[in-house]
């Protein structure tokens, strides 16, 4: 084995080879969250119902520990979880909530800062006690509502005070659709799972998204899979032999040689669509098909799972994204595709030519406020990609007024869009 001192010498000289220097054990990278010992208090609690969890939603402000999450916090629930989204460095917190035998309502989970991935444990209790009891019973609590508890760093016991008070309820829905990039976030964002994995699809809502975007490539034997790059490599995968063009691998070889960066399977598109339809409440799925072959392989699956969603009464739109002229031309060459929704990322002329309902321009073209307004007036939906910085998110929300934003920071976009909507509401109210 390479000794640590020799490894340091090698590593200092080959300074960009740090991952190889650190990982001499042959293990896969991991990106877990800190967890309370023995499952924490949640292990002894009755899980909070979805109806009751919604009673915690609102716009909150910190009265102590504001340095953790920021000043204007959006609390939103998703199946099985309650999340808090702040504006300090795109920090968010994800909790499981449960009602204890002594009447207390506890939230336990972790906080994470998206821009540098610092994390730690958080435990909060709903106060006052009668409000906690009411929420556990699924009843609305009229009085003031606070969350009081503590947070820590890393796996350390929470020992810093955190207290929040609710200022108001949220609006019915945010003005802006929050579309999570690559299924939830990129692998490098360390949000809990690899990008384009089944695991991240299940996490997307608790990260703040109600819609997701995933990338589709095709193997040499025509199996569409979720994967962003045209080649497998160590940036997104683990596996000694997981190298080379995706189109050079059969599906069998993908399962045998490749896992995603944090150890998950590379999913087939079929399995990903099943997961979205059967295991989530996402309302939108944008398929960024990279090639015409990928588009052709995806279409039967889109139809199949659109039907399955309809049969289940799911409110879900699966949209095929056309990101290049080649894909637009391939789409125009298809017949009998009126039952499949599409999205155009190129220009307005291609949008009109294809008859697609959604326009997805890249954000570096600028807000294009007048063009966006005109396209929206024609009945189209507009969603910019991909915005992560707070100042640019605010700029686009206020100037372009798009229907949606594609982002690696879904919680931040959610928080900014709610604040913008509340601000607009305040300006509208005399």
């Amino acid at each position, binding site marked *: 084995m*390479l*000794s*640590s*001192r*020799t490894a340091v*010498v*090698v590593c200092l*000289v*080959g300074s*960009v*080879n740090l*991952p*190889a*220097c650190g*990982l*001499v054990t*042959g*293990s*896969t*990278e991991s990106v877990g969250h800190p967890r309370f010992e023995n499952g924490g208090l949640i292990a002894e609690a009755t899980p909070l119902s979805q109806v009751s969890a919604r009673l915690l939603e609102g716009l909150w402000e910190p009265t102590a520990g504001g340095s953790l999450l920021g000043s204007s916090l959006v609390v939103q629930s998703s199946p099985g979880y309650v999340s808090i989204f702040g504006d300090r460095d795109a920090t968010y917190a994800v909790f499981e909530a449960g009602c204890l035998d002594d009447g207390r309502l506890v939230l336990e989970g972790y906080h994470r800062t998206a821009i540098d991935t610092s994390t730690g444990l958080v435990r909060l209790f709903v106060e006052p006690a009668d409000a906690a009891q009411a929420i556990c019973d699924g009843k609305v609590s009229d009085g003031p509502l606070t969350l009081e508890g503590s947070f820590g760093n890393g796996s350390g016991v929470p020992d810093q005070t955190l207290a929040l008070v609710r200022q108001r309820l949220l609006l019915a829905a945010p003005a802006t659709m929050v579309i999570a990039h690559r299924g939830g976030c990129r692998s490098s964002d360390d949000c809990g799972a690899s990008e384009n994995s089944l695991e991240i699809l299940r996490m997307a809502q608790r990260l703040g998204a109600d819609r997701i975007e995933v990338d589709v490539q095709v193997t*040499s034997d025509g199996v569409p899979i979720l994967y962003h790059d045209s*080649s*497998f*490599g*160590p940036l997104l995968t*683990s*596996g*000694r*032999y*997981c*190298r*080379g*063009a995706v189109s*050079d*691998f*059969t599906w*069998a*070889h993908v*399962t*045998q*040689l490749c*896992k995603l960066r944090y*150890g998950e*399977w590379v999913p087939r598109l079929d399995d990903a669509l099943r997961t979205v339809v059967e295991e989530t409440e996402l309302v939108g799925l944008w398929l960024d098909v990279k090639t015409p072959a990928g588009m052709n392989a995806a279409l039967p699956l889109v139809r199949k799972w659109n039907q399955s969603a309809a049969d289940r009464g799911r409110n879900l739109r699966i949209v095929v994204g056309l990101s290049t002229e080649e894909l637009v031309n391939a789409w125009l060459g298809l017949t009998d595709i009126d039952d499949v929704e599409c999205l155009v990322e190129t220009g307005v002329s291609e949008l009109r030519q294809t008859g697609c309902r959604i326009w997805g321009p890249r954000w570096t073209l600028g807000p294009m406020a007048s063009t966006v307004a005109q396209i929206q007036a024609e009945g189209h939906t507009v969603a910019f990609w991909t915005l992560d910085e707070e100042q640019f998110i605010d700029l686009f929300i206020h100037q372009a007024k798009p229907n949606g934003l594609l982002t690696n920071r879904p919680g931040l976009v959610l928080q900014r869009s709610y604040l913008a909507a509340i601000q607009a509401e305040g300006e509208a109210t005399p």
Partner: protein
Amino acid sequence: MKWTAFTFAAFAVLGQVGVATAKPPRRALEISVQSGYGHVWGKNGDRSHELESRNGGASVAVGIAYRTPYLFVPWVEAGWATLQWSRETPKAREFSSEAPSTSSLATAYLLLGPSVEEGVFRFRAGIGLYHQQVTSTFAGQTITPASWDMGYYLAYGVRVHDGPRFGWGVEAMGLLMSESQLTYLGIALRFWGNAWAEPRH
């Protein structure tokens, strides 16, 4: 640490032979071939299905260096190294009835950089391209994908015999494939001849 100390000590001993026999030219266009054996470190992923494996393997390379009496001696080298080989049982349930897979990883490389020569000792550093080549047979099909990576090279060695026309020596080398996060460390025997030489006076 022990491995590093051992190679330094071994090279120091060999270097005494080099010092005793050295008659190197003042300037020379040196063409070399080297062959060695090494071991690989880096991310290996899931190995729980492995039946057998071989880590590392042989390497061969040819190079050209322009030796001068000054500090840096530039060199160019092209080579090939075996990195890994393994047999693994099927991992996915849908292929559980298939025969084990056989896969291998090798790399070709093209590197260049400066070297510093101090007496009979030589330290080399370089930058270049690695062409990673995979061969894998599974479920009745064989695939041969490949990818290009950028990376670095480090080596230190000793000239055991350094004559006016030919010589040979030993080198400890490291192929640092930074994009692939793999490091190949090995020991190689080098033989060189001078295509052109300006003798020492």
